[in-house]
């Protein structure tokens, strides 16, 4: 964009980004949301193989809710600090599209499983409006067969459990939006409820974007319009799409016009958003409680039990490892992946401390791939490997003394530098010495000897 143009610079300062997120993620339950079909839409051998009368929307097909999917949705809500509705239900959301076999989607309308809660980001928390559970649609494939353009429908994805996480318009920058998405993905993976494969469409992002003028901000008013950018399948694209919208909407607002209320798509090749569907009025989905699915009444004790079953979440693990073991950001990023690995590393770190080895060093070895991350292996064997790798053969003191003496004599310039206060040449001597005595030598022992001899000169 034209950063040279001073008017644009002025303009962007004059508006605040108001952005709320809608994230869809497919749950990785064994079976689909409302039937017994295998839930494996991306790896089916052929289209329309994981299907039955229910997910094909045949006459007489009836849904039966997948209890695991409900449990996971509520656990996600608990992990994000949501309130859980003890009474909840499924509703029918009606609209016509060829990928929707029944003419309605089973979703949740006014009483979702979870409300409230927040996702923490480094830019501050993003509050959640709700989390609800619904069924995914079939997949449309547009192709040319025998020279004829055809649209085909693959129902392997129809009826896959899908959680929708809706946020408040708390996102204030494109970077925060991306971080929000990444954190959500991390938590879902951590809970082992979703793979969130972005490329396959296992996690889909939507941003509701508008700009607030300084005057509106002062009066505490929200913008009078909203632009929805849909079906974004990478965090980088999300960031780009929002940045593009900030520019585009700013330009429109500068001309004194309100940007159109509409749904836009994002073209990653051109890095632009484009109009998909003008949204004059809110669509009327004619929501009604699904009479095929009795409503749910959860006991408080059940919710407590699920809360109790939650693993320690990645944010908390990172803080704890950073505080207790001094792990750096790079190590935390690589090591905090899922609950199983965390539990395994906790036992490795604990044993390391017991054996007088700094967990930080173990972490570094894991990051550098000197040690293998393998929760199958016992902490004992991991530490044994580590010790073997790092076992420093102490060098014969006489031999070391002679070697260093020789090096110092060969490099009078470096010695002079050291004596002049340039202590960093110590590294040079270390390198020279280690090359002679071997990399397995105890570096501490070598360093002490060099320093001793230098001081005596």
């Amino acid at each position, binding site marked *: 964009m034209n950063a040279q143009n001073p008017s644009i610079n002025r303009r962007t300062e004059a508006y605040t980004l108001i952005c709320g997120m809608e994230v869809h993620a497919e749950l990785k339950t064994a079976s689909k949301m409302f039937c017994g079909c295998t839930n494996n839409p991306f790896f089916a051998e052929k289209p329309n193989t994981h299907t039955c009368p229910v997910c094909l929307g045949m*006459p*007489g*097909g*009836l849904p039966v809710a997948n209890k695991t999917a409900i449990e996971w949705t509520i656990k996600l809500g608990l992990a994000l600090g949501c309130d859980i509705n003890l009474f909840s239900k499924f509703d029918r959301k009606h609209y016509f599209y*060829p990928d929707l076999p029944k003419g309605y989607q089973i979703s949740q309308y006014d009483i979702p499983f979870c409300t409230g809660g927040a996702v923490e980001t480094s830019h501050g928390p993003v509050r959640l409006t709700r989390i609800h559970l619904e069924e995914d649609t079939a997949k449309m494939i547009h192709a040319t067969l025998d020279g004829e353009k055809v649209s085909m429908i693959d129902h392997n994805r129809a009826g896959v459990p899908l959680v929708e996480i809706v946020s408040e318009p708390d996102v204030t920058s494109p970077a925060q939006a991306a971080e929000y998405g990444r954190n959500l993905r991390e938590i879902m993976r951590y809970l082992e409820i979703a793979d969130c494969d972005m490329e396959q469409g296992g996690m889909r992002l939507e941003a509701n974007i508008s700009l607030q003028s300084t005057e509106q901000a002062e009066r505490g008013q929200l913008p009078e319009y909203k632009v929805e950018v849909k079906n974004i399948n990478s965090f980088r694209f999300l960031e780009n799409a929002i940045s593009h919208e900030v520019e585009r909407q700013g330009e429109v607002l500068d001309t004194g016009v309100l940007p159109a209320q509409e749904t836009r798509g994002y073209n990653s090749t051109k890095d632009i958003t484009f109009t998909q569907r003008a949204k004059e009025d809110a669509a009327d989905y004619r*929501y009604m409680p699904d*009479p095929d699915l009795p409503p749910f009444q959860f006991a408080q004790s059940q919710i407590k039990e699920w809360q109790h079953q939650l693993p320690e979440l990645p944010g908390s693990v990172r803080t704890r490892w950073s505080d207790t073991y001094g792990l750096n950001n790079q190590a935390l990023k690589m090591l905090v992946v899922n609950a199983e690995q965390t539990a395994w590393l906790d036992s490795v770190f604990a044993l390391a401390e017991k054996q007088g080895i700094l967990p930080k060093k173990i972490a570094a070895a894991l990051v550098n791939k000197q040690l293998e991350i393998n929760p199958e292996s016992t902490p004992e064997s991991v530490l044994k490997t580590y010790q073997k790798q790092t076992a420093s053969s102490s060098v014969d003191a006489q031999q070391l003394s002679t070697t260093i003496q020789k090096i110092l004599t060969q490099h009078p310039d470096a010695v002079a530098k050291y004596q002049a206060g340039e202590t960093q040449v110590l590294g040079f001597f270390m390198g020279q010495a280690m090359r002679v005595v071997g990399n397995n030598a105890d570096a501490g022992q070598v360093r002490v000897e060099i320093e001793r001899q230098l001081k005596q000169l």
Partner: protein
Amino acid sequence: MLNTLTLKKAHQAIKSKDISINELITKCTEVSQSKNNDINAYTYIKEDANFQEQSNTKISGIPLAIKDNFCTKDMPTTASSKVLESFIPPFDSSVTQKLRSSGAVLIGKTNMDAWAHGSSTETSDFDVTKNPRNTDYLPGGSSGGSAAAVAADMCIAALGTETAGSIRQPASWCGIVGLKPTYGRVSRYGIVAMASSTDSPGPMTKTVEDSAILLNAIAGHDPLDATTSPQATPDFTASLQKPIKDMRIGYIYHNLAEFEETKSRFEEQLKVLEDLGATVEPAPTFDPHYAIGVYTIVQRGEVSSNLARYTGIRYGGDRSHFGDEAKRRIMLGTYTLSKGYAEQYYTHANKVRTLFMRDFQELFERYDALVSLSSPGFAKKRGASEGQAMFGELEDMLLEPSSICGLPGVSVPCYRDETTNLFLGMNITTPWWKEGRAIQIADAFERATRWNTWRNKQ
């Protein structure tokens, strides 16, 4: 005349080897084929219906007629709509599957109001069914084909479905027995949905005893239908031939204007119950006219939703094949569910529905059962439903309050007009899950009166 046997007698004859199953099937199929040109009870008669699974049940080898909204993998399933004219389901409904595995023989699919919308069978896209008792008259509906097939001995027994009256009203008009089970007693899986919150499949038979036998065969929890009850199914035949002495029976809807013409004949029949030792007294209820409003709104809303899948994309004809009645219901239902109106109509109707449930709860604190006519009057002449958008709702008015509450009921013949050969039916409604008690009263009444044409051959 093998086809005129009741289910019970046919079973006994098979068991004692007095008749062969194949003879029985052939006879029923032949009679069905010859009578169907006139009666049009069936939309499809199976050419090669034969007995396959030997089974030690009371319905083994029994030829049954199945309403055409049950999915059957060997026969077309049209719900009497041209939209599904060419549809042969790849699966069986849970109920037909149960019947087959108990050895029953499904000999054909019966005509109905298209999508079960109506109480005359006149909205069928495949011609109206005639009332076998008097072919100038309607059989009622929506399970009119099943009622006619039973009345005309074109099968041994049949299955229907009822949303509010669709089993009991045609049973009443055709002079047979119809049993609507408690909502959730019998699985809806594989039945073309009409109003999902009230649809109840049930038996349509020659005697109350036959209904009890058939209900035993189809009742029970189905893991494929989340609205079926997990509770155990009792043996409904245990309620047969039991005294009804000291039963407290409430006589409901006795003050309705719609009911003047038939009132005295019906009240005459209530004396039979008293003679059997029951006490019968008028019981005031909520005005059933309110139930028409509630039922119409709830049912039309669910209809508009359930028919949304018939787009012509996956199977069957497109939307242009919908008849006028379906279109009317889709439009009304779409309207009552739309934003700004749903609160006023659909949500409100469901609140009134709850009030009806409370009314029945209170009534059942005082009475063991409630009785009324099944339909306010005799069968109407053919053509009566034309131009009458609310035809069914008025004919089913006496059954709609209990149906929207999911209550069970049995309709048993309780009067026959000598001149027209047309019947009235008595509806016996009992508390939720107490089908056995309704069977007990209906069976006692049937045995004590001369109205059942199979028990009392003239």
